[in-house]
């Protein structure tokens, strides 16, 4: 065995599984970001920069290949919505970083690393100039080729060769400007010969390619096409007049050609794969040879090398990683150092450093370390004939453990120019780990098989595409025995899932259509903007021309042929398959009394934007299939914990109504299911239904019973709530017998169960002597928040809650003057309130400029439009004689009396204590947020001292237009 084999064997042994093959995998484990994102080799091949993404932070690590030590260069808190969108070396000491911010513009900079000490020292320097690095020019130390945006409304770039310092200082005056920058270039291709440049421009459908000759110093257009079927990708210069391009202009398959820049014609064919489009290629302009080409063969990315040395290395790697796909993701020309990525359908992948001289591959990081504990299902790719010698390829993933007898046929989206791969897929692994088999088919219309293959699928909705899928289903059905078949897909896949079940009603027992299109004519009339010619043309290129025949292949018009239970999923912000597509099919099926369920996700576009959403969606899909096919739960040691987790996530969403429509009946069903597995929060939430009389008859005793069970099961929230109920004698609208002693004991239990706020309620009981002997000193000790770092919960929330309880304590009765002095002293030292007894008065006040939807509108007290978002009130300065003009804190009571009425005819009021700063203008405002507030009338604001003495009063009048 060679050294490479030995080193990799060690890695593989480390990765052995803790779980059995039959264990279902939790959605939490599968639906998450990979931990390792990318690794790039420094130009001197001494270091590797790695980009990691942990739960709460993103880290860029520098890895020293010689010492095998690693150093964190910088980290970012992902909770603030920041992401690394680009990371590349510009020279041996500097990394270019582009940070994408959720709110605001990208932040770009250079991380300059000082290697002079024992530990590399990074320094982040911001680049303020709008633009991008075209070519880091690794061969020229300290300089980059930079495209600087000089346009205003539209991006226009000028090219400069700049030093790093010039870039950081935005000093382009002293930088070298490249003559004759191509205006409107949307992309400059890096890595061509010195002095040569290739760029592209786009004008509508017309894409043009330009060459800057090193000799003439002029840009010349050498290729242009508006044919969307044409591929034309410059790869690299072969000599001064000849370039290598990937193109399908003169062939069915995308192949590697020579292209002569003198007469703008294609030259000889350099390489063509017999069956597949070439995806990518690299040439060596010095040696005038092809280094490699890549293509997708049976769903797997294949790299074909052209030199003996590369071929030998690749064979060794393939031998060391049997059954895996191996790719070089970072390397330096003609050096032995490579970063490789090894992955497969049953492996999300790992990054390795590979030395072609020593033949040792050393693992850098697995992409998803948590999955190392599981054995994933491996796919099998097969091809079968469809007609007249035409073959299609399909991917079948079967469970490693017991099969549940269900084949899920999963057509891909598109359908034109999209395809499926033999890669790791969290969705497929989720289903396979639960016993399902999954089939995906690269039907005609899919990409990677040539122009003819792709074009054959155009306008074949409900026709040859579904025929191809049906052939593939027939093929696997001959080989394996499936008791049930379901269809499931997204976008076009959603359409196809429903059409397959329409065309073969006896073959499919359930259907899941996600973000799909079901009324094809509606694609042409989804909105008035989509009636415009360009959009209509784009749709026609996929669906075919708009005419009545589209109704013959539209599920909306064929709804009476849908027999199997159907789950429809859509996003209400979907810009591609508008939710109207799904809703009209739902409407029609409801008319026909079909077995139908739906999940309409709020705020979602063409798919779900969060991993949490995916977890919810797949939990529901699995539940949907099991209910309708009456399947047993999958076996496995962790099965009940996964069922508990998934029942809870389904229940939470039906209960909150935040992401999908609220449905109390379904929420209760799933909470009870999770409660059955012993989930304490689910037990607690079941109590709410009996408390509120939702779905079940209102029954306070039953509610209390569920709350107690949840408390017994260790749920601190239940114990805390029971403490509140017995303290106040109120449970929502129900009045119960208050029991201070019982309340106190529940607060104590909640605190023991680590409830963050319970300690403050215990404090209040001690201050007021409610349910426990009065102990002011201990009460005030418990109210003191010492070290925010050691807090169990969020510091600000905790402080806010503590302050509210402190005010409740202060405004309670029954204190001796000495006790009250102690409480006031606490307010002074802990909350900064120094004024209690001094007479507060108003120095000045005036209504402020009312703000309507972000636009300042000057209003008077008497003419405020009663519209949502309107905010009105006063700016007030309070003072006391004793404050001597100093800014100090005081506490007052603020009461707003609205013109809106309660059911009993009384006016609705809002009372709250608030901390104010003396001798400083304070805003005292009301904002109209709810419909009930949009009324005409007088709004009165009153401010009282703690002794209930009126300090200030004002009135505002709203009007309805």
């Amino acid at each position: 065995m060679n050294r490479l084999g030995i080193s990799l064997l060690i890695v593989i042994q480390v990765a052995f599984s803790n779980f059995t093959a039959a264990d279902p995998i939790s959605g939490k484990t599968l639906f998450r970001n990979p931990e390792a994102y990318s690794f790039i080799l420094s130009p001197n091949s001494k270091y590797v920069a790695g980009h990691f993404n942990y739960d709460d932070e993103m880290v860029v690590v520098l890895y020293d290949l010689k010492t095998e030590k690693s150093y964190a260069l910088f980290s970012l808190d992902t909770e603030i919505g920041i992401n690394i969108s680009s990371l590349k070396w510009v020279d041996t000491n500097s990394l270019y970083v582009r940070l994408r911010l959720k709110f605001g513009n990208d932040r770009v900079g250079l991380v300059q690393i000082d290697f002079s000490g024992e530990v590399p020292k990074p320094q982040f320097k911001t680049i303020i100039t709008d633009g991008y690095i075209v070519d880091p020019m690794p061969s020229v130390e300290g300089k980059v080729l930079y495209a600087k945006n000089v346009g205003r409304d539209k991006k226009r770039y000028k090219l400069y060769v700049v030093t790093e310092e010039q870039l950081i200082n935005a000093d382009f005056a002293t930088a070298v400007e490249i003559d004759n920058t191509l205006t409107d270039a949307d992309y400059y291709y890096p890595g061509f010969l010195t002095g040569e440049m290739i760029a592209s421009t786009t004008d509508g459908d017309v894409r043009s390619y330009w060459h800057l000759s090193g000799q003439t110093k002029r840009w010349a257009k050498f290729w242009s096409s508006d044919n969307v079927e044409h591929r034309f990708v410059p790869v690299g210069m072969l000599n001064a007049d000849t370039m290598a391009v990937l193109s399908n202009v003169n062939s069915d398959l995308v192949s590697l050609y020579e292209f002569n820049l003198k007469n703008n014609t294609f030259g000889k064919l350099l390489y063509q794969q017999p069956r597949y489009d070439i995806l990518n290629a690299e040439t060596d302009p010095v040696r005038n040879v092809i280094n490699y080409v890549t293509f997708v063969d049976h769903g797997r990315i294949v790299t074909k090398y052209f030199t003996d040395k590369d071929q030998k290395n690749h064979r060794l790697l393939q031998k060391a990683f049997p059954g895996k796909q191996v790719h070089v993701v970072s390397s330096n020309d003609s050096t032995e150092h490579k970063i490789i990525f090894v992955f497969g359908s049953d492996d999300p992948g790992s990054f390795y450093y590979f030395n072609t001289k020593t033949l040792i591959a050393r693992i850098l990081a697995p992409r998803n370390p948590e999955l190392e504990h599981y054995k994933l299902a491996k796919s099998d790719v097969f091809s079968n004939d469809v007609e007249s010698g035409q073959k299609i390829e399909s991917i079948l993933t079967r469970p490693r453990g017991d099969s549940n007898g269900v084949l899920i046929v999963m057509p891909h989206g598109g359908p034109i120019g999209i395809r499926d791969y033999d890669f790791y897929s969290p969705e497929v692994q989720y289903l396979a780990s639960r016993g399902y088999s999954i089939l995906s088919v690269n039907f005609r219309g899919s990409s990677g098989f040539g122009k003819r293959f792709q074009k054959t699928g155009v306008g074949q909705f409900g026709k040859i595409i579904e025929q191809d899928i049906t052939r593939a289903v027939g093929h696997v059905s001959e080989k394996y025995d499936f008791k049930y078949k379901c269809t499931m897909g997204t976008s076009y896949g959603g359409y196809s899932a429903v059409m397959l079940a329409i065309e073969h009603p006896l073959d499919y027992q359930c259907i899941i259509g996600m973000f799909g299109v079901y009324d094809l004519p509606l694609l042409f009339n989804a909105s008035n903007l989509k009636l415009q010619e360009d959009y209509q043309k784009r749709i026609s290129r996929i669906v075919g021309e708009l005419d009545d025949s589209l109704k013959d292949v539209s599920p909306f018009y064929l709804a009476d042929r849908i027999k199997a239970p159907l789950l429809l999923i859509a996003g209400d912000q979907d810009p591609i398959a508008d939710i109207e597509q799904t809703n009209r099919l739902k409407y029609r099926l409801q008319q026909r009394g079909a077995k139908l369920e739906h999940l309409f996700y709020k705020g979602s576009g063409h798919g779900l934007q969060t991993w949490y959403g995916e977890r919810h969606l797949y939990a529901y899909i699995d539940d949907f299939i099991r209910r309708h096919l009456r399947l047993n739960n999958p076996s496995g040691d962790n099965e009940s914990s996964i069922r508990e987790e998934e029942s809870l996530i389904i229940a939470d969403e039906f209960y909150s109504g935040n992401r999908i429509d609220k449905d109390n009946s379904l929420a209760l069903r799933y909470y009870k299911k999770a409660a059955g597995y012993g989930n304490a929060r689910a037990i607690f939430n079941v109590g709410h239904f009996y408390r509120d009389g939702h779905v079940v008859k209102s029954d306070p005793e039953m509610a209390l019973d569920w709350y107690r069970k949840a408390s017994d099961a260790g749920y601190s929230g239940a114990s805390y709530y029971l403490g509140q109920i017995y303290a106040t004698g109120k449970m929502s609208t129900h009045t119960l017998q208050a029991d201070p002693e019982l309340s106190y004991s529940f607060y104590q239990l909640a605190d023991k169960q680590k409830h963050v706020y319970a300690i403050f309620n215990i404090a209040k009981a001690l201050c007021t002597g409610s349910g426990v002997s009065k102990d002011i000193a201990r009460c005030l000790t418990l109210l003191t928040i010492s070290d925010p770092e050691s807090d169990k919960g969020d510091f600000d929330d905790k402080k806010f809650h503590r302050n509210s309880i402190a005010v409740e304590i202060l405004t309670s009765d029954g204190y001796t003057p000495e006790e009250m002095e102690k409480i006031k002293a606490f307010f002074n030292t802990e909350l900064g309130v120094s004024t209690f007894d001094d007479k507060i008065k108003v120095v000045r006040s005036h209504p402020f400029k009312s703000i309507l939807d972000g636009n300042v509108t000057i209003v008077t007290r008497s003419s405020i439009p009663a519209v949502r978002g309107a905010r009105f009130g006063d700016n007030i300065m309070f003072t006391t004689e004793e404050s001597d003009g100093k800014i100090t804190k005081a506490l007052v009571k603020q009461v707003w009396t609205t013109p809106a009425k309660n059911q009993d005819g009384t006016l609705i009021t809002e009372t709250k204590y608030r901390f104010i700063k003396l001798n400083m203008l304070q805003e005292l405002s009301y904002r109209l947020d709810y419909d009930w507030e949009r009324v005409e009338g007088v709004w009165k604001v009153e401010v009282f001292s703690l002794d209930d003495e009126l300090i200030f009063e004002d009135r505002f009048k709203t009007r309805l237009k």
Partner: protein
Amino acid sequence: MNLFRLNLFVFLLLTVSGCVTKVSSIKRDVDAKLVDGEGYLLLAVDTSINLDFIHITGTKSARLTSDDLQKGSRYILIKLPAGNYEFNKIQLSNVYNYSMKSDIWRFEVKENAVNYIGNLMVRHYDFGSRAYFELINRSSFALQYLNAEFPNILNGRTVEYGGPGEDDFFSTVRINDSEGSK
């Protein structure tokens, strides 16, 4: 300004203001009989900013007022004489207004029918003048709304798609409805 010009100005002012009728959405499901030649128009407005008015022109000029055009999403049902119309102008609650000059903003009201013309989406960005308008076809949601809120007005009337382009949704589900009642 000479007397002729002043008279002309006053005449034009009277003419313009006399033609534009302020209309408010129907709130109660009472089927007050339509005048001959009238139909109902159903429009949904989904706006990220309060609007002052939407001006529509055609067989009659009408102005939807700010009462029905608050930030948020809501349906507006009004009566109009049957005929062809178009969105003419949209005034935001700030200083900006937008003229809609294109065929894609045309719609039709048929006599004695409820004519759904689309969901008007208005998005206003930042504090500048940039705004986005689109009339989205959400016929099935409109029908659900009408069934729930205006069964009396719906009774004995057809719902038609009157927005730009063509759509057979209403006629298709109508056929199914009548099949279902057989």
